């Protein structure tokens, strides 16, 4: 991204949020920001102004109020125009205000539980981060018209159903913050899946990184918010090491620690320290602690499998999902031997997992460690039959070959 593009992207959440709070209309806020950004391109030929956000806020607000005035003039042809239009002078005066920080309200609107989860994630990345529908469609693996329709529907519902542009009341807070966190998790899961694909989605992960950091900055006293920001940083720290030269996936405990990004690890550790100091546990803190434990190999040279297995015990109690159970079985196998891992895996309920690739991959690893090559090969064949993406396929095929 150019310095110019970065200045605009960094200013965007604050400016769009302030516009949306003022205009009470997401479309108008986005349009005004886009116009101001286009004007900036012409007005900043060589370098950005000292405070690009303030410049964009003034320009966008002026453009939005002008557009309203024009619309009001047109509406005067109809009797009883709804509200008196602001004069250009009023518009200029309004624009001299500092930018109010409405980012949290904007995030709560876009992540309202009255919207479907996938629509929330798309809308948040579109409105807050400015990702195009085309780029979101690629990341969420849907056709572009589908993505456009999803975003339009969500915006229409916000307006028609009266979703308020407010930070939720204390009574509604736990549910609402959970909705925001779930939205970010969906967005990040999408970005993480894309790691093995072409680099055109790496920018998508960067936006989720930025968004999770923004939320941690806005809600520094919510340990689960901090933990999610840490989790995204820990996972992103390993991104440069996730594929080998042949494009095959490399699991965390085999990755070259020299490729891990120390800056992101340090940022994640700082967030986790702060979360721990708040003294309230939660599933995202445990999950982030598991990711963090893997990363300690960079210092100690060994993956702390016993710690990881113990953390998975806690996570399984908080989030009893098959995903957690399978990952726990893998950690138990590494910590206490493949027989115990296979025993843990047998408790998961295999009939629910036949179509789930990580289950077969986990079984293959445990059988191979137990010296049961026939069973391991069968599990790898079952995994490969589920048509994994290229990086994972290359990795599984190599393991298959190593078993003869």
């Amino acid at each position, binding site marked *: 991204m150019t310095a110019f593009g970065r200045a605009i992207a960094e200013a965007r959440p604050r400016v769009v949020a302030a516009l949306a709070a003022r205009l009470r209309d997401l479309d108008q806020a986005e349009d005004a920001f886009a116009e101001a950004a286009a004007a900036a391109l012409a007005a900043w030929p060589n370098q950005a102004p000292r405070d690009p956000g303030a410049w964009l806020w003034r320009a966008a607000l002026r453009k939005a109020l002008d557009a309203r005035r024009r619309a009001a003039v047109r509406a005067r042809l109809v009797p009883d125009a709804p509200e008196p239009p602001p004069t250009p002078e009023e518009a200029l005066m309004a624009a001299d205000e500092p930018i109010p920080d409405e980012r949290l309200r904007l995030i709560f609107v876009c992540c309202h539980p*009255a919207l479907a989860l996938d629509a929330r994630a798309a809308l948040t990345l579109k409105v807050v981060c400015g990702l195009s529908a085309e780029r979101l469609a690629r990341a969420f693996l849907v056709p572009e018209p589908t993505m456009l329709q999803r975003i339009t529907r969500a915006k229409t519902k916000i307006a028609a*159903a*009266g979703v*308020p542009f407010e930070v939720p009341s204390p009574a509604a807070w736990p549910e609402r913050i959970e909705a925001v966190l779930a939205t970010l998790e969906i967005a990040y899961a999408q970005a993480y899946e894309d790691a093995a694909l072409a680099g055109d989605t790496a920018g998508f992960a960067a936006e989720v990184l930025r968004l999770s950091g923004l939320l941690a900055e806005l809600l520094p006293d919510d340990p689960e918010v901090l933990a999610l920001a840490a989790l995204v940083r820990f996972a992103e720290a390993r991104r440069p090491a996730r594929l080998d030269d042949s494009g095959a996936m490399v699991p965390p405990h085999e990755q070259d620690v020299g490729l891990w990004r120390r800056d992101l690890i340090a940022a994640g550790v700082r967030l986790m320290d702060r979360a721990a100091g708040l003294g309230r546990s939660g599933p995202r803190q445990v999950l982030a602690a598991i990711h963090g434990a893997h990363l300690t190999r960079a210092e100690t040279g060994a993956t702390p499998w016993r710690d990881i297995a113990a953390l998975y015990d806690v996570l399984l109690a908080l989030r009893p999902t098959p995903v957690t159970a399978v990952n726990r079985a893998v950690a138990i196998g590494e910590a206490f031997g493949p027989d115990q891992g296979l025993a843990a895996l047998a408790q998961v309920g295999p009939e629910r997992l036949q179509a789930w690739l990580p289950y077969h991959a986990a079984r293959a690893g445990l059988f191979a460690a137990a010296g049961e090559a026939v069973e391991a090969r069968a599990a790898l064949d079952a995994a490969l039959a589920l048509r994994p993406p290229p990086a994972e396929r290359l990795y599984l095929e190599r393991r298959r070959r190593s078993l003869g």
Partner: protein
Amino acid sequence: MQYMLLVYEPADAYEGEGGEALLQDVVGRHMALAEELRAAGVQIEGAGLQGVETATTVLTGAGGRQTIHDGPFAETREHFGGYYVIDVPDLDAALAIARRVPGVEGTKIEVRPLIVHDQ
């Protein structure tokens, strides 16, 4: 904004032993909530409906031909049992009231904004 809270209950909500007592309890709580909402100036109207066995449906078919049928428009596991119409500032306020509408396990409260026609 005006919202309708549509109350859907499981078809067998008040069947069996203790069903009648449960129904009386739920109805009593509806009355109390409605009274409170009216006093607060939030509730515009509302009513409970008699059972679906009392329902009759007028169906308009091709060419505008209308026929009369016994029963509700669709056979579903949930029955539409009553409604509230409220006037509150926004969806969050409407959802807060919807949470307080009494019901048994499986009760669903659908919150729908009303179309407002300009005068």
